[in-house]
């Protein structure tokens, strides 16, 4: 049994799995059920001036028969009275002293307002604060959320305001709706943030109802862009997390968020530099119970790898991420097909033919059966056939080592 406990920016937690600030952390009874199910921590649904929500407010994208590979929402921050939330936070923390209870905050761009809400959250017993600079819809139209996160100067300024009064760790939650995530991240560091969390949701329009011709989700015949999350956003989140993990100026812990639904997803975030992870959509889809396999799977993985504690894998893959210009131009792989495992779907052939480099032919074998055969001279090693092949272990990408010394584009171009 590996040690799964974490200490994220000074906030201890029984495991690296936190609930992200969202509907699953809407109120005390929910967070308590989540802790009972095994979640290590929770970031309370963002507090601020209570707002009014619209109905409907969610939309999703399916892929084939798989429901909800991406989710979009136009929900705002909490719509419950502040004092009710604060009372429940207090009770919850009392009941679950060992779990991490972080409170997410968002108020208008006003120093006093920020000071006030920080004090209230700390008074309720929050283990940490998360500043929501990420909400991309609704709140941003009011100068909050992403409107702060998209301007590094604002990010820095508001973080400073908070740090003036905060006594518990302050996490700044970043919006991915920027051209370069490094700028807001560095601004938060400059403002004194103790940690970063990312990503919040991505600007999105989920689709259009082909009968009514109104985009989803339909609010009385109109729709607004929303925030995109769920499995489909994971690669985008991983990129942003790894960029910050590689950025020497960002020397504070990172909480990884975006599309995490399995222990493998979580492990990838940890390997690329996240000190813990937060989950929203997967819980909205399947419930708190998924944490059981997140914990179990991660534990088994660590045990099998002979790694004693989760903290040991944090950032392990970061040195493996580099700029394109540093990649070895002399490294060569080619596709090789094991006909004994091939089911003759010919997808590799058509993919290479129409989508790559025309080097897989369908060749009649001695027994009369037709199998795909790679022309290794022509194969550029792009991986496409390997990616489309449905048969396990059928196509492998094999290294052709001609003994050449590694050389990168950067080296070639001085």
């Amino acid at each position, binding site marked *: 049994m590996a040690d799964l406990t974490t200490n994220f920016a000074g906030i201890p937690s029984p495991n690296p799995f936190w609930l992200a600030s969202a509907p699953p952390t809407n109120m005390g009874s929910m967070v308590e059920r989540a802790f009972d199910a095994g979640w290590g921590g929770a970031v309370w649904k963002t507090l601020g001036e209570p707002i009014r929500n619209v109905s409907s407010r969610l939309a999703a994208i399916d892929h*084939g028969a798989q429901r909800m590979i991406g989710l979009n929402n136009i929900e705002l921050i909490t719509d419950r009275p502040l004092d009710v939330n604060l009372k429940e936070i207090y009770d919850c923390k009392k009941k679950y002293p060992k779990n991490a209870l972080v409170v997410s905050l968002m108020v208008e761009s006003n120093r006093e307002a920020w000071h006030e809400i920080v004090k209230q959250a700390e008074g309720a017993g929050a283990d940490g604060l998360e500043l929501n600079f990420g909400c991309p819809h609704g709140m941003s139209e009011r100068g909050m959320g992403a409107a702060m996160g998209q301007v590094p100067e604002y990010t820095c300024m508001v973080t400073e305001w908070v740090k003036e009064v905060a006594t518990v760790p302050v996490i700044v939650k970043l919006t991915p709706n920027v051209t370069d995530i490094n700028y807001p991240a560095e601004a938060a560091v400059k403002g004194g943030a103790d940690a970063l969390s990312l990503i919040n949701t991505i600007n999105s329009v989920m689709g259009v109802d082909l009968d009514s011709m109104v985009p989803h989700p339909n609010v009385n015949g109109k729709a607004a862009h929303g925030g995109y999350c769920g499995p489909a956003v994971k690669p985008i989140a991983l990129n942003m997390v790894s960029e910050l993990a590689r950025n020497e100026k960002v020397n504070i812990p990172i909480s990884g968020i975006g599309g995490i639904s399995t222990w493998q997803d979580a492990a990838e975030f940890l390997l690329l530099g996240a000190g813990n992870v937060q989950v929203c959509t997967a819980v909205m889809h399947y419930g708190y119970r998924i944490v059981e396999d997140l914990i179990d799977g991660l534990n088994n993985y660590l045990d099998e790898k002979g790694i004693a504690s989760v903290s040991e894998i944090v950032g392990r893959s970061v040195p493996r991420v580099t700029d394109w210009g540093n990649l070895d131009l002399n490294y060569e792989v080619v596709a090789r097909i094991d006909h004994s495992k091939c*089911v*003759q*779907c*010919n*997808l590799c052939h058509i993919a290479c033919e129409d989508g790559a480099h025309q080097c897989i032919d369908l060749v009649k074998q001695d027994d009369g059966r037709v199998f795909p055969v790679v022309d290794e001279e022509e194969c550029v090693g792009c991986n496409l056939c390997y990616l489309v092949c*449905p048969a396990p272990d059928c196509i492998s990408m094999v290294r052709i080592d001609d003994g050449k010394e590694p050389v990168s584009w950067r080296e070639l171009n001085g």
Partner: protein
Amino acid sequence: MTKKLPKDQIEKNFSPIDPLMTKAEAKVESNRCLFCYDAPCTRACPTHIDVPSFIRKIATDNLKGAARVIFDANPIGSTCARVCPVEALCEGACVEKTLVEKPIEIGRLQRYATEHVTTSGKHIFEAGEPNGMSVAIVGSGPAGLSCATYLARLGYKVTIYEKKPLAGGLDTYGMAEYKMTQKDSLAEVALVESLGVEIVVNTAVAAEETGDRRPETGIGTWSASDGHRGSQESEIRNQDGDAAQSSVLGPQSSSAPHHSSLITHHSEDAQYSALSTQHFVSFEDLCERADAVFLGIGLGDTNDLNIPGEDLEGVIDALSFIERVKTRDWESAPLADTVAVIGAGNTAIDAVTQAKRLGAKKVMMVYRRGREHISAYDYEYDLAKKDGIEFVWHASPVGIEGNGRVEALRCRRNDGSDEEYTIPCGMVIKAIGQQKQGAFFGSIGLETDEKGRVKIDINRMTSRENVFAGGDCVNGGKEAVDASQAGKLAAMAIHEKLTGETVSFAGAGGLLRISRREEREDTD
């Protein structure tokens, strides 16, 4: 009379063995398809339907498009979806079968898509601009319907002559009722008719006149004494018990037949005869009248056993038995408590399962050889087993005993002992294959092979100029889907012969000329 099962139970027993997919099922199943390239399923389908293409369209909720892909390559795609031996064809070749031992349910998806069209009255294809030429087709089975469809799409005026009261051939009269009903078959026939194809039922084509000929049309009445069956299929009714759809009914149907000018209306008294064969068209007249003729006349009557007692009451041939079941008039369908079916092909299976489903207590399949020699598909055999059928192997029937009615079947043991014994039973069903149409072809002067199958040349033409043939009468008896493909290729051949222009339809690429692959084989 044997006590049948309660009506409700019989209805249940004859409800579709593979129910229509729900939308949810279709979604999951269609998304399981890998969308193979040069897909094995398509290659395995005798009509070469572009299976991945139609499945992908189902996945994108484009059901009309999916149905178009299917019917484009196979005009009886709705029948085939229900009756094809998919385990031996498309599904047997599916890569998902190799991958996870669970092929995509192509047949059921095909039904899901085609049903969208057959039940909605949607039209998929239009008749072609009339080209001034006409083709006469004999037989409205899969081969005839398919050939008619493509010719109509090319602009030919097509008339089908069908000796039975209902169109559809064995689709209508032969398919096990739990696979498909007459209503299903007739819905597909209606699609063909919607292209302007005229179907003249109750009208047999014969070498020459037999009966009161009307000189100006060459069409006369058919006398039932002519050796053709036609008497026992009285009162063919559709599923709801109403008189079958007038569009495919014979000249006697109350609505005036559109083809009345061609048919001598020989009014006989009983309503019964209104639905039986009574008209004929002379083959020579057809040849004169039409630019080309296509023969899709299938096979003939069931082979006789040629043993004593064959004429006892209670002895029936499988085709007649199935035809009676297919009227869904459960009350009057012949049955006994104990039924012996002789034969071990797919038709024998259809007979045993349907006898059992009607309520026979004990149903036996009697076969002269062992399990390993049966020609029925494995899944058909499994179905019979599941239905509780008993198998009597290595038993050669030598006589049927009884006093006016069947009381027992006498068999000889084929285990070297030659011992004779009797199997008590109240009904004997003969299912030992059908005769070929050699005599008919001979009578109209067409060459046949030694087995009585009409010969066609590399361009699919018989020994007579502009007379083509396809389906069971050429291949000796295969599946509906093979007949459908034969009809398609014949349409292409006819068009090429008449116009010099080569056309190709979906799933026919490069197959116009007869190849060695198409070598005929017997299935019985």
